[in-house]
């Protein structure tokens, strides 16, 4: 009744590499924009910070916890958008979303996203698509945040918005979970 996708097609070498040695991990402080997001399916979290300069994303970092797919996707995302203009980043986000929804063959990926072809296998594992998208939808929020801040207060941001945890009693902050 259903095709049975192979697990090997999911865990490609490039993904495992980005997972083991992620690019641009950490947190920029100060930063020009920040966003925090949770994948409600699993409770995994990501914190994204970026710096903006002359219309481009000058620097970008992510931290948080997640599975190999989400951590690899975050790593590739930062590589793809670093140094690009905000407009181009937005285009790349849309392109990647279309790749995940099956609306775009990986052969049609622009050069900046070439590596992302490795994530094509995720399409066969629908619940994991959210993992692959998490970093990208967080980038959307961060770019919204950037726009809001640039209108209101053009200066740099001293402190990155803290991730919300109303459980003072437990005093838990989302930790960084690299492998």
């Amino acid at each position, binding site marked *: 009744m259903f095709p049975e996708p192979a697990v090997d097609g999911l865990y490609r070498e490039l993904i495992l590499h980005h997972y083991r040695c992620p690019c641009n991990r950490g947190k920029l402080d100060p930063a020009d924009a920040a966003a925090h997001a949770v994948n409600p399916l699993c409770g995994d979290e990501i914190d994204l910070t970026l710096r903006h300069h002359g219309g481009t994303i000058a620097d970008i970092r992510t931290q948080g916890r997640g599975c190999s797919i989400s951590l690899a996707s975050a790593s590739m995302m930062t590589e793809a958008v670093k140094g690009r203009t905000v407009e181009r980043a937005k285009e790349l986000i849309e392109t990647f979303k279309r790749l995940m929804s099956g609306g775009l063959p990986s052969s049609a990926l622009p050069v900046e996203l070439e590596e992302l072809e490795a994530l094509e296998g995720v399409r066969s594992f*629908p*619940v994991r698509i959210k993992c692959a998208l998490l970093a990208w939808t967080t980038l959307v929020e961060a770019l919204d945040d950037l726009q809001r801040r640039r209108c209101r207060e053009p200066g740099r941001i001293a402190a990155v918005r803290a991730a919300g945890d*109303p*459980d003072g009693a437990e005093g838990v902050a989302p930790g960084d979970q690299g492998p």
Partner: protein
Amino acid sequence: MLAAKADFPLLGTTMRGRSLVYLDSAATTQKPRAVIEALTRAYECGNANVHRGAYELSERATALYEETRERVARFVGAGDPREIVFTRNATEAINLVARSWALATLKQGDELIVSEIEHHSNLVPWQEVARITGARLSHLELRPDGTLDLGAMTSRTKLVAVTGASNVLGTIVPVRRLVGMAHAVGALVLVDGAQMVPQMPVNVTELGCDFLAFSSHKMLGPTGVGVLWARRELLEAMEPIVFGGGMIREVWRGGSSFGEVPWRFEAGTSSYAEVVAFGEALRYLGTIGMAAVREHEKTVAGYALGRLLDDGRFELYGPLDPEIRAGVVSFNFGAIHPHDVATILDGEGIAVRAGHHCCMPLMRKLGVAATVRASVYVYNGQEDIDRLLSAFGQVERIFGKQRRGACRTDLSSGLAPGSIEVAGQGR
């Protein structure tokens, strides 16, 4: 008939030695084999808790469940599957709007409009809202010709909750006109589609309504599934009313944040198999085509109306114009209590409903305690109506000859509306 009786396993059975004539589809319809098999298949091939598992089996289940949501959205012309909330039945769908949207929105001095022909499921929730908020509950009146007086609305009117089609009179309510009137004064419209959605093409975008509730089991699907459609921005603004697994975003010891619509309203394990089988029912209806369903209902109900009127022993309720009548015919047979009629017809293998049909205020308005109701669906044909009529010989054999009935569509003839007139008593 429109659909082959052979598609419906139960219709092939005998009842008290006679082949079954099922004329109670307004209560619940029979299920085609394809739907029953979809249910079986759901458990035999893809059973798993949806939205939770990272494994293939659960992904299949989730995909089928969410595909059904898309199918339901398309079926009622909704632009976005996220406007579809699965509930247990139409009643729960209406109650969700009452408890979440209305309690948060209405206040003292506001007006809530229902009609005199509402099913209890689209009346009692609003009585509760009125009681709690202090809003006033008004009723669109039933006119002698079996249609609704659409009344007047004011800027205090906040919601019109009305059935799309009456489950007793068959009256099809002019929803689009009501929506126009309501929106002109800033009020929203909830349509109880429990009888409308199974019977005719429904497109929420064209209707323009704000909420639509209906039930799977009245349109060839299994029990245990209801639907609330609501405009996205309304749903987005609504607070959940049932809390637990599957509807949250983050949970801490002391508090929680909630997930996205529509899942925010679907706490706990979903009725996975039933929802998926409902999708199969929609596919079956889609193959027939809802316009054809509507034509068929008109024809068979029209035939029944004609025969009952010609016969002369029956008292009929509801509009006579088939254009504004769904596949439901309510009547009384002389002074014989509807439940006695139903029991004797049952002895002849004919399943009809007797009672107040969850419309007690309407019964009072009609001046009867109860009616007999025959309702038809895609698997019924004129021959079922013929069997119905001939069975009244047996009713007369037991209870004696009945005096002539009348057409009670015209309430004004001799009867002040609102007075109780005991069914058939001495007329």
